[in-house]
């Protein structure tokens, strides 16, 4: 089969990839010489793997495809390559001949592959294509793995290795010149719309087909221009948004409403005007994938409440009383500079007016400082986008004005940390959640306890109970050990609940929720926070 024919047959199913298909077909044709190595690259959802496997099966070139994402280690990958090759030749039962099915190193792989290829029956000897999909995402790969794999094709004459990358390759990344690259660029506007229009138009009962076929192209183009294009969306997300919004878009027509302006028939422009709200509310939420999809309104429902917001978020969880109080103390401890502890939490002066004034003064000062810093940072970021993030810095033990302000600079970092919750974000003027030692949490717990024991001397210490509850909070990742918070290394030991005595902790959720929880048990978080009540 000629490359052009293949391109024609494939483009019916996978449109807009003619050039790439023809290039691949030429390079991988069984009767034409191939380059030893071939690099195919392009961002995800650009049809790379599909086109390659389509071309290979159409050409009937013997080949093996290894999905690198399914291999856990580099060794696993090499073993998989060997097995899949054997399977492609139908020699799977003779695995014992080839290194007993084991392959620990690339050099071994080269030898074994050569043996494999040589062991083929004479009439089947010819070109063999090995496709390594998403090879740049291989886990636990050695740094030389890629260039070593690229060299396989040079060592074994009849082998052609195709490396599929989803990142744009750096120049000479294989330490080898003259490797042909085939690029799969993202689809352009025209192509994306064409692809979507090539699938059958969703039919809707009660509406004549010609009306739909008149309106639908406009609708698809509008969706692309408003939602998909600006966000660099992929074809699947484009398609799912269209599928989701189309029934709602066409709803006025289905319901038989009278079009405005004395016209007798709906056209695209009128529908669009009618559905302005749809794009604003539904469209933007359609871009974000959620695990639990929001229940899409049926046309009748939407009709009754056209301005209703998207499905209300499920109620936030509530914790037992004691745990709530501990979490609140942890939050307050994380967001108050230690320097100000005596001013905010000292029991001796808590009721006097001057103490309250002092607190208010500090809250305001911290807030002003943080705002100024945030603005400055924003300006700096605008001027030079490569400004290094200051988060990586070690937190100094001594709180000077500069450390304070650098802490403010990463404002709203509660949400930018690993625990950042998408839907719930705290006020941006609050300090970064900073680690605190356990003893400080205990002390603050006693300070903010809304129901302090009547006789603190005689009631037993609560520290032991706090530890127990803290363990649970840690399991829920509401409070985490500080080392895990900073470099993410300790978090690999997930589920480990042992703690060191001097270890520091850090709160890991946003403020709004904790504020709500604390209000439920009678603690006003804002009273203790910098910039909280203003």
């Amino acid at each position: 089969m000629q490359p052009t024919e293949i391109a024609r047959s494939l483009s019916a199913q996978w449109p807009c990839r003619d050039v790439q298909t023809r290039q691949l077909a030429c390079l991988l044709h069984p009767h034409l010489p191939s380059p030893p190595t071939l690099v195919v690259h392009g961002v995800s959802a650009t049809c790379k793997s599909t086109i390659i496997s389509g071309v290979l099966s159409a050409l009937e070139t013997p080949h093996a495809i290894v999905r690198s994402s399914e291999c856990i280690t580099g060794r696993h990958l090499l073993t998989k390559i060997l097995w899949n090759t054997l399977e492609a030749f139908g020699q799977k039962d003779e695995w014992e001949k080839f290194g007993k099915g084991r392959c620990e190193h690339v050099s071994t792989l080269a030898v074994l592959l050569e043996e494999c290829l040589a062991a083929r029956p004479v009439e089947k000897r010819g070109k063999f294509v090995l496709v390594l999909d998403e090879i740049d995402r291989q886990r636990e790969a050695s740094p030389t793995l890629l260039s070593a794999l690229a060299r396989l094709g040079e060592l074994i004459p009849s082998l052609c290795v195709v490396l599929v990358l989803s990142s744009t390759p750096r120049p000479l990344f294989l330490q080898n010149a003259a490797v042909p690259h085939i690029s799969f660029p993202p689809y352009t506007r025209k192509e994306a719309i064409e692809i979507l229009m090539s699938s059958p138009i969703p039919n809707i009962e009660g509406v004549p087909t010609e009306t739909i076929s008149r309106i639908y192209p406009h609708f698809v183009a509008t969706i692309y221009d408003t939602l998909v294009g600006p966000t660099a969306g992929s074809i699947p997300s484009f398609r799912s948004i269209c599928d989701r919004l189309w029934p709602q878009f066409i709803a006025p027509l289905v319901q038989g409403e009278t079009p405005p302006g004395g016209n007798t028939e709906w056209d695209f422009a009128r529908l669009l005007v009618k559905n302005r709200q749809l794009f604003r509310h539904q469209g933007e939420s359609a871009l974000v994938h959620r695990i639990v999809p929001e229940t899409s309104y049926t046309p009748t429902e939407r009709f009754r409440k056209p301005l209703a917001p998207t499905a209300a978020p499920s109620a936030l969880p509530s914790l037992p009383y004691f745990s709530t109080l501990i979490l609140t103390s942890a939050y307050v401890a994380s967001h108050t500079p230690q320097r100000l502890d005596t001013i905010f939490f000292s029991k001796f002066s808590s009721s006097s007016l001057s103490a309250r004034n002092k607190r208010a003064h500090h809250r305001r000062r911290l807030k002003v400082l943080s705002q100024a810093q945030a603005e400055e940072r924003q300006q700096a970021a605008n001027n030079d986008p490569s400004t290094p993030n200051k988060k990586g810095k070690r937190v100094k033990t001594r709180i000077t004005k500069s450390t304070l302000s650098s802490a403010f600079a990463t404002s709203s970092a509660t949400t930018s940390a690993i625990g950042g919750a998408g839907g719930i974000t705290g006020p941006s003027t609050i300090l970064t959640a900073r680690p605190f030692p356990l003893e400080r949490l205990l002390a603050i717990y006693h300070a903010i306890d809304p129901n302090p024991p009547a006789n603190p001397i005689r009631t037993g210490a609560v520290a032991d109970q706090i530890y127990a509850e803290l363990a649970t909070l840690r399991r829920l990742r509401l409070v985490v050990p500080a080392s895990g918070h900073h470099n993410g290394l300790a978090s690999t030991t997930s589920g480990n609940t042992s703690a060191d005595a001097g270890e520091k902790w850090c709160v890991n959720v946003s403020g709004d929720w904790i504020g709500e929880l604390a209000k439920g048990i009678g603690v006003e978080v804002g009273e203790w926070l910098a910039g909280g009540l203003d």
Partner: protein
Amino acid sequence: MDSDGLGDVLDLSKDRSQNQEQRTDMKNKGVYIYQPAKSGKPSGERPSKRRKVSSTNITKEASETEGFVPLLNGDENPECVQLRYNTYKQLWAEQEDRIQVILEDVDAGVLKDVSSFVRETSPETSNGCIPTALVTVGSNVSSLSRLLSRLNDQLKSTNEGGVVVLESGDAPNLKTSLKNIIRAAVTNTEGTDGYQRFLTDRTGPRILGYDLDLLHDYVQRRGTKKLVLALRDSEAFDPGLLTDLFSLFKSWLDRIPFTVLLGISTSVEIFEGRLPRACVAMLQGQHFEVQEAGNCVDRIYEALQTSSDGKMWVGRNITSTLFEKASDYFQTPEAFSRMVKYACMSHFFANPLAVLLGNPDPSILNQNRFCEAIRNLPSFRMFCEDLLEVGSANEARSMIEDDDYLLRAAFDHVNAGQEIMRRIFSAVLLIHTCLQHTQASKKTPVSDISVRALSGELSESPLVEDMLTTLKTLDSEKLGDVLITLPTLAEGSPLTDIQADLKTLLETNSDSLPLRSEYNVNSSVVKTTVVQQRVLLTKGKANLREQDIEYTRIIDRLVSALQVHFAETLIRPQELFMHEAFLFDLRNPLKETFTPRPRFAIERALTSPFDYLMSTITPDAKISAKQPAAAILYQLYLESGALVNVHDLWQAFYGVYQRDENNKCDDRVVMALFYGALSDLKMFGMVKNSRKKTDHLAKSSWMGM
């Protein structure tokens, strides 16, 4: 589990009894090494071998009486001990069944939803994403494992697949978690040996333990249609690891039918927010909610206390402790029932009177001691005083002098008391049902009512008064509903008559329903009269119809009947003679056992070591060289600020020894002690090196937190 828990209690008591005998011994010894007795085995016997089934049976039988020790200063008959133990076993077995039924019933709804979700979804129905069930459990953490095991049973029995449970502890990294998943999936149906066989008996090269090819093989062999992977504590997993796992699953989804089930304790939003967007994009599914623990705990309590054949009850102190714990802390229903079990067990373990609950033959009792014990009860004294007051001095005398008479009376009163307790709780239930109708918004749980009933305050409480007032204003239709749902009172009560009367009244006046009593708002009218330019409002009764007056009479009868009933039944249980036998209300063993305080104990041991170590010398100063070095150093440490100069500390430490030994101590020895003590404190995490000043130590813990 059961025998272990028992064993612990047992050991403690043994120590206590040994203490009494060997008190003199102990005084000289000061410290002794605590050697726990091996549960179920006499210490001399060699460890039993696993294979010999018969020999383990013998030791087991021996252990059954061993659980409980003779009380009454050791004079209790072995038969009584056995009987107490057996009664406890039997009683708790019944209660446990009840709890199980409740737990299963609570989960039933969610289980149905989840299993239908698992059966009906596939990657095709969820846009090529991994089908995901998000189960929010709140603080009711244990319910998920019950749910999962039942789901697993269902799937296994229909040969559809199985559930693989993964906990955060099993997943330190990708390789190990995959290995664990594969092993769990295979052993779930094939057993451990099956897994080994599965690994070895396959043609082809040996596959690494974490290769999902293994699972693929297994799925093909078994024809598995649904493989549910459940993460019990999803929040505790590392988000990066989850992303890796899910991306793997997604790429295998065309070959292995994965369904992911995530247990979430906070909320879906928080959980979702922590995952990378790429990870969220791979999942799609539904959200399920498990009932809150509080509700479940209430139902368990109700079932335990109000059952019609109850023999033993927990008192108000314990009830309030239990519910405080349930509302203030993360607690599972299982933990709740364990606490109740502990309370029940301590009653039978430590109270010789508990033998009366087993209906013993009087001959097996050690009559002399037993009667002495009864005569020491507070309730016995109260009872005798009451007897004297009503003038039956003879009876009181025979109670005190005649053992047989006393025993008979005790038996009778235990039975009567149990009957009264049952009636109290049936009255509690009655009030609870009525409240369901009269309280509009906030429903009072059974536990609250029970606490009041157990302290004897219920019949005069505002709760009941409010209820009765609201009851009066109900119209005939609502009253009919109330009467139908009310449990039957004791025999011969006027309630049945009232019901019958109401019925006839309604039948005769079926055209003018509903009937309203005079207490109803609609039945009173407001008259306005203008007197000297002022408006006077006077409330007056509207002219009631004949049948309404009749209805009012019925309501009055009902309310007064209820009042009489409550006043009769709701008495203070503490006033009953022999209530100690069937009412357990000691707060202490329960509270101490379930809130251990290690930090407090360490601090106390360090500040006043002679609370724990016995010393013949009474120290004059608070700190003395007789104390352990770590304790001395700790007390000096308490006196210092946040930063301590080590040399100052050493000087003070040396000073203590110098003062006690009259300047004759070897400072090298003291230095060694100082180093040892300092490293002890460091190990406790109380001091660390300070970065601010080189020769200083930083304090890292404060006392009394």
